[in-house]
């Protein structure tokens, strides 16, 4: 019997770290006594999705965290074997694991390779050791470089390096040094994130009590522009607000998010999108175990998307991409006339040089990317006819 199979991705969350970085507010723990139970839980969760796994074409897998490379590689193998029971992964194009240079060794890398992991996402963050220490990273730049070269030797041909900018005390030239060091390493992909100081992180407190000082907004944006300039010059193309790659090395997994394709989200605090429903797993270990022990999916929030939600997402996600939104497709899929329905807003955004429109696509300018939340908020607002409903 032939089944109608749908393309789906898989995200797997490993919420363990050797040490928490000072800026991180994401769900992870340093308590490694939980690892074994967690992996058991994770496997149980995957089994609960077996029917859907069987009918999916899996093109990308992404193991994120936390620090997936912190836990033993045998656990990673167990997870993959479980998935493999229900899906042959024959169509797998990209399989990424996030690694921290301070937790890598040859054995781990070789196992990853055997498991068909073909892409590493490595948190390098900065080439400045003092800075790395300030933000609570466990590795030096030299160790990161060594891990990178080791991965190359073992045969990883697609490596992405992460950078963070707008770090406390960082100057533009400091950041340029990091960019140039990364260019020298010649990875296929670079992600660069502007530091966001989240509440209830050690960094938040250090900044609040003025022990650390963040660069001004203007400076942060200059760093971003400098980043784009230097990377473009070296053939890394900005294809999404925070992502650059050599030609053909755009992250397929992330692209699936931006293009609103469906994906499984496995693990604590993981998010997924299946059967037109977005869902989120519990962020609490006890609840996670509890729910799974009753053979329930550990979901705590779920939202079916109607047409309006889908359009909202389409705009929100589409504008993150350098190539922007395809207006022709958008108008057709949602039976709207986007530009005309938001004429005044569009004009304003054009005047302020926040967006550009050519023929079929509407996209953010660099300035528009800097203010993307503002721009998107204006474009997704469909009910702001203030003038007309105020008259008596």
């Amino acid at each position, binding site marked *: 019997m032939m089944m109608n199979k749908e393309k789906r991705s898989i995200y797997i969350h490993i919420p363990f770290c050797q040490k928490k970085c000072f800026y991180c507010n994401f769900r992870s723990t340093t308590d490694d006594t939980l690892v074994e139970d967690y992996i058991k839980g994770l496997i149980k969760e995957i089994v609960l999705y077996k029917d859907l796994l069987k009918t999916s074409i899996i093109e990308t897998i992404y193991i994120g965290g936390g620090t997936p490379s912190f836990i033993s590689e045998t656990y990673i193998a167990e997870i993959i074997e479980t998935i493999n029971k229900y899906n042959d992964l024959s169509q797998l194009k990209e399989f990424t694991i996030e690694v921290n240079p301070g937790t890598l060794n040859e054995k781990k890398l070789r196992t990853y390779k055997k498991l068909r992991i073909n892409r590493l996402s490595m948190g390098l963050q900065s080439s400045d050791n003092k800075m790395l220490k300030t933000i609570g990273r466990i590795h030096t730049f030299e160790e990161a470089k060594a891990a990178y070269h080791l991965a190359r030797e073992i045969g990883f041909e697609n490596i992405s390096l992460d950078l963070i900018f707008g770090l406390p005390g960082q100057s533009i030239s400091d950041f340029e040094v990091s960019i140039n060091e990364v260019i020298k390493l010649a990875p296929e992909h670079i992600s660069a994130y502007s530091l966001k100081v989240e509440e209830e992180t050690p960094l938040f407190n250090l900044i609040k009590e003025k022990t650390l000082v963040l660069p001004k907004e203007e400076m942060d944006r200059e760093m971003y522009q400098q980043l784009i300039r230097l990377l473009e010059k070296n053939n890394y193309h900005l294809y999404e607000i925070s992502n650059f790659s050599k030609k053909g090395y755009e992250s397929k997994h992330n692209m699936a998010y931006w293009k609103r394709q469906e994906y499984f989200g496995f693990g604590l605090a993981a*998010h997924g999108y299946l059967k037109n429903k977005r869902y989120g797993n519990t962020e609490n270990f006890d609840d996670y175990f509890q729910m799974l022990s009753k053979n329930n999916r550990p979901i705590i929030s779920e939202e079916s998307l109607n047409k309006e939600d889908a359009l909202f997402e389409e705009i929100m996600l589409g504008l993150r991409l350098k190539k922007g939104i395809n207006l022709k497709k958008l108008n057709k899929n949602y039976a709207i006339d986007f530009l005309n329905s938001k004429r005044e807003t569009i004009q*304003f955004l054009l005047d302020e040089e926040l967006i550009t429109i050519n023929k079929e696509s509407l996209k953010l300018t660099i300035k528009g990317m800097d*203010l993307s*939340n*503002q721009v998107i908020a204006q474009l997704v607002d469909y009910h702001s006819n203030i003038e007309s409903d105020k008259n008596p």
Partner: protein
Amino acid sequence: MQKDRQSKIRNFSIIAHIDHGKSTLADRLIQMTGQLTEREMQEQVLDTMDLEKERGITIKLQTTRLEYTAKDGETYTLNLIDTPGHVDFTYEVSRSLAACEGAVLVVDAAQGVEAQTMANVHLADEQGLEVFPVLNKIDLPSARPDEVIKEIEDDLAILAQDAPRISAKDGINIEDVLERIVQRVPAPTGDEKAPLKALVFDSMYDSYTGAIAYVRIFDGQVKKGDKIRMMSNGSEYEVAEVGVHTPKQHKMDALRAGDVGYITASIKNVRDCRVGDTITNANRPTEKPLPGYKKVTPMVYCGIYPLGDQKVDDVRDALEKLQLNDGALIYEAETSAALGYGFRCGFLGLLHLEIIQERLIREFDLDIISTSPSVIYNVNMKSGEKIKVQNPSNLPDLTLIENMEEPIVKADIMVLKDYVGNVMALCEERRGTMLHMEYLDEMKVMIHYELPLNEVIYDFFDTLKSITKGYGSLDYELLEYRPADLVKLDILINKERIDAFTMILHKSSSVYRGRRICEKLKDTIPRQMFNIPIQAAIGSNVIARENVKAMRKDVTSKCYGGDITRKKKLLEKQKKGKKRMQKFGNVEIPQKAFLEVLKYDDE
């Protein structure tokens, strides 16, 4: 027989300076006379509005009937008519006093006599009431009853040696107060057989029964089915119900001379139930109405406009309902270039304005913004025409104006002598002229000033309180109009004049005020995607400018683990935030900015 009945009635008010414990005493009296069960007895029963409880002040008056068996063995009916305590509500105090024969004067045994104590005693005297004092908060360590007794006798010329010394909060000596009411407040002496003569001292709107008139029967009687006439406009109604408040509404067969109670008569038009009116029997009318109340004239005006999606009709409905039991509030429709359709409203003072604003927001759940408050100016045109301007943006072109006059008030400010310097500095800054100053005793000083009203309406009272550590008190009344060197100050945001911010003020303070307003707006207007110049201008002359710098960065650089929902929620929140702002061209101005501009200063 009827004289005998009335001899057991006492109609009284409690008067006091704000915070001296009037409402607490009222609660105690209700509790002592057993009108409510313990469960029903909430703190400050008579303050029914949330706002009143929160601010600890009484705005609207309430009445309640108490049954008290005195030491002489007789049971008396005590009708308590609560009064508001703030300077803005003098009018409401006078309404309640006119319905009484006596008043209990509550004086804080620590604070002593204050400006409102004197003002209220004065009002009670005007009504010919029997006033006797009570010393409250006697249990406070800072209480100084002997000195306060001397103050009362010296400042108010009221004997106070034998005043009950009570703690309303702890229920100490409350019975003394009840006894004193029976002994001191004269019994009513109306003629039950005479034609009906009832004074409306308050009214309320109820969607089921129509307007409810709170009345004091001076002569005659009224019962269900009677045909009554409102003497001010001759409208007639059939009585649906009469009763009293205990303080719950309690139906009665009839109200007779001397009684205090309520009448409902399906009065759908609130204007037919005006406070101060006299109700009589349509078939057997009385000849002359009771002397009316002091007519109130609003002193402060401002525009109130719907914000965002709020409908102008909702605001009108709410104002109409508030007006029913707040005769001092007036409003009329107006339009603003910046804000669209709204209302120009008149108030007794700035507190009254604030309270109406808050009631609109809380009780009616409205999103509104108010424009800068203003007084009424007399404008003499070069053409010889004389006009009154209450909306600053309606001020004619200055080249057409010969001169302008502003209202001046006579202000009585009472402070402890240590703060006299501060108060004088404040009054000088607000263009005041000192008339004279008198020492009421070793500590207390009464300072008499003439002040322009437009200086008083911008948080003068709050400032007075803060520079006197809370001890300063204020009472004022309109004196006259005087010529003044006034200018119109415009505020331009992103080069557009926002008429809601326009104000008329004295030339001497215009530059400073303009600068402060620009600074405040700069701090309250959130950064947007472009630079926003803020300017203050007199005519075409820009006197101050600030700039809200463009936002440079608002980007979510990472979507953790595909958490699209979180990002969506963030954006939705951002979208919602915009709803609480008013859009002028492309600039969004939050509600808060409008309130900030009203404040005089905070340095």
